[in-house]
């Protein structure tokens, strides 16, 4: 028999969830509603005058070639960051999983970078790759003869922010892949080994498919990370430059809203981001539950 406990009075139940609901309303719904309202208004920062302008702000941003360019940059940047960090995470996890000695130490060392704040990670990579004082930049320019200049070249700048953003996320992916790898039944791998499958074959036909739910989950998490949490990296490394080459959507919201005090446009951009994140989340739930399932 299953034991169930019931609240005798409904009021108590509601009272118990009240704090959580209040927190959610105050810190999530209220600002979201404010953002929605702000996005259809033109108002001055001090709140002295505001006028309702329907979709003026939205029309403005979507007819602005730079906003469209920023969407492209964000997609490219997120994809590059996600793929880089997932590839390295998976690679390191499969190596660490096979380590014979010092497994715990290796794992701990590889998880460390996750504790580094994005802004710090940005500064570290800036020190490595800055054309005037970067050690790695010096190596690239003087030894390999590559014309490396992220202050001028948009591609170089993009590579630099992708590196700084992905580096930190490798650890996160590593942890999940590590857990995923340990959940792969040994019997399957041993059976395949007895059938004569080499390590690569075993990885691609057994481990990798079994990891696909983890992979999909990480893909979504990494894209969300690249979209929203890389602000610190971009702010410290390129400030959106050169020539707007690393101006992602989130950074643009900050620039227009906080620095430029153009609240209407900034709010409209936030609403677009909100819609985007809702879509990604819905897709994730749908997919994770239906498509990506490997049954034994």
């Amino acid at each position, binding site marked *: 028999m299953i034991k169930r406990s019931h609240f005798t009075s409904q009021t108590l139940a509601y009272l118990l969830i009240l704090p959580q609901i209040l927190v959610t309303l105050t810190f999530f719904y209220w600002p979201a509603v404010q953002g929605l309202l702000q996005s259809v208004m033109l108002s*001055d*920062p001090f709140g002295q005058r505001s006028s309702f302008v329907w979709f003026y702000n939205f029309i403005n941003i979507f007819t602005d070639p730079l906003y469209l360019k920023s969407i492209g940059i964000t997609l490219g940047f997120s994809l590059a960051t996600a793929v880089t960090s997932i590839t390295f995470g998976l690679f390191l996890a499969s190596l660490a999983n096979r380590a014979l000695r010092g497994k715990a130490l290796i794992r701990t060392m590889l998880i460390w970078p996750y504790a580094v704040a994005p802004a710090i990670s940005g500064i570290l990579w800036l020190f490595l790759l800055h054309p*005037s004082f970067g050690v790695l930049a010096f190596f690239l320019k003087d030894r390999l003869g590559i014309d490396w200049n992220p*202050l*001028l070249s948009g591609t170089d700048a993009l590579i630099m922010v992708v590196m700084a953003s992905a580096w930190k996320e490798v650890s996160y992916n590593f942890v999940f892949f590590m857990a995923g790898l340990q959940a792969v039944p040994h019997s399957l791998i041993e059976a395949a080994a007895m059938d004569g499958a080499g390590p690569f074959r075993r990885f691609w036909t057994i481990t990798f498919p079994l990891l696909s739910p983890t992979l999909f989950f990480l893909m979504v998490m990494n894209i969300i990370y690249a979209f929203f949490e890389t602000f610190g990296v971009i702010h410290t490394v390129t400030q959106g430059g050169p020539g*707007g080459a690393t101006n992602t959507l989130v950074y643009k919201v900050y620039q227009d809203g906080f*620095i430029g*005090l153009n609240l209407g446009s900034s709010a409209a951009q936030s609403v677009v981001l909100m819609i985007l994140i809702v879509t990604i989340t819905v897709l994730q739930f749908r997919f994770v539950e239906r498509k990506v399932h490997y049954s034994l």
Partner: protein
Amino acid sequence: MMKKLMMLMVLVVLAVFAADQVFAKPIEIHWWHAMRGARGETLKKIVDAFNASQKDYVVVETNKGDYDETVNAGVAAYRAKKQPHILQSFEVGTLTMMLSGAIYPVYKLMADQGYKVDWSGYLQPVLSYYVDDKNNLLSMPFNSSTPVMYYNVDLFKKAGIDMPSKTEPLTWDQLGDITAKLVAAGAKKGMVTTWQSWIQVENYSAIHDLPFASKANGYEGLDCELKINNPQVVNHLTRLKSWMADGRFSYEGQKYQGAQAAFVGGDAAIMMESISGIGNVSKNAQFAWDLAPLPVEASMKNPQNSIIGGASLWVMKGHPKKDYKGVAAFMNFLAQTDMQELWHMETGYLPITIKAYEALKEKGYFKENPYQEVGINQMTRRNPTKNSRGLRLGYFVQIRNIINEEMELIWNGSKTPQQAMDDAVSRSNEKLREFEKTYK
């Protein structure tokens, strides 16, 4: 026992209360600013001096981060009705502050409180940035700087170049020859610039008496448009771009760090940078250096004044009347000669009154530190015209961003200078229309 204790406590509380009544607490005046490091320390000295000079008011200074963070904090506080009395705002935020409806204009404050200020005793090119269309001062200039040309004396000597004059500007053609010689003599980079929009476009326009925007640079109406796609500015940028090819000019980023690193590290022989960079350069440069005015075109026989950068102090509305008496007293105190001398000597920012400037001169300060006078001379060499008194644009922060972006597209060869400036103008005009729509 218990009762006695209670009695004692009541008495103590009463005594404290009474003391509070007798010694009326001084009124607190809150000042939010963006000055940190050495500048912040000097600011604190001024505040302490004011607090020690009288008993009725206490100025409480709080650093709120960068310029934009400080303005943001002020905006948020005003909305929550918790605004400070005095808010420091950078020069590009002038129009936003002016139109905010949240400010108490300084000229009015001083008049209301019975101070008869002789505004003509102030440095006009500094004041002119912060006046309204009737020439009334809206905010108190605090830290004002202007760009000048720094040069590496050692590298100049090595290349056999005469030191430039401290008052007569070089021409850009001369600078072209000088940088060529420098590069030929082994300098890695001829010239670099910090804040490219401010120095190479805004100040270039002011010095050559070119309109940056219509409607007298925006002073006479929100319906102004940018004018920087004119042949002179385009020509100037084309020249810089051509100098990039042979190392006479090198781009080091939008802000100041890259260019300063290149200059201080001895790579770049010439740097155009604000006079507020003097502190950093003198601390870090391992070579002899000096200042000269910014170069001008050979065709410009009488170059105009350069314009300022920096920030001013805005008085916020919504405090009790008795507080404003203290605010006015503090503003008056700030403009005192000894305070201005201290501020200038410790930070390198311009003194805002002519009196303070003369006093420094009399003490022989400029004889000892001749480089400190270069910026002041350049600022005051002529009375400001409509094109050189300042810029008054809505969403100026974003417009500067746009100009910076378009300039970068010139440097990396994606656009021709004409194309880039045309695009900068049309993109900025959209922002100006949006601003106009918000404030109409």
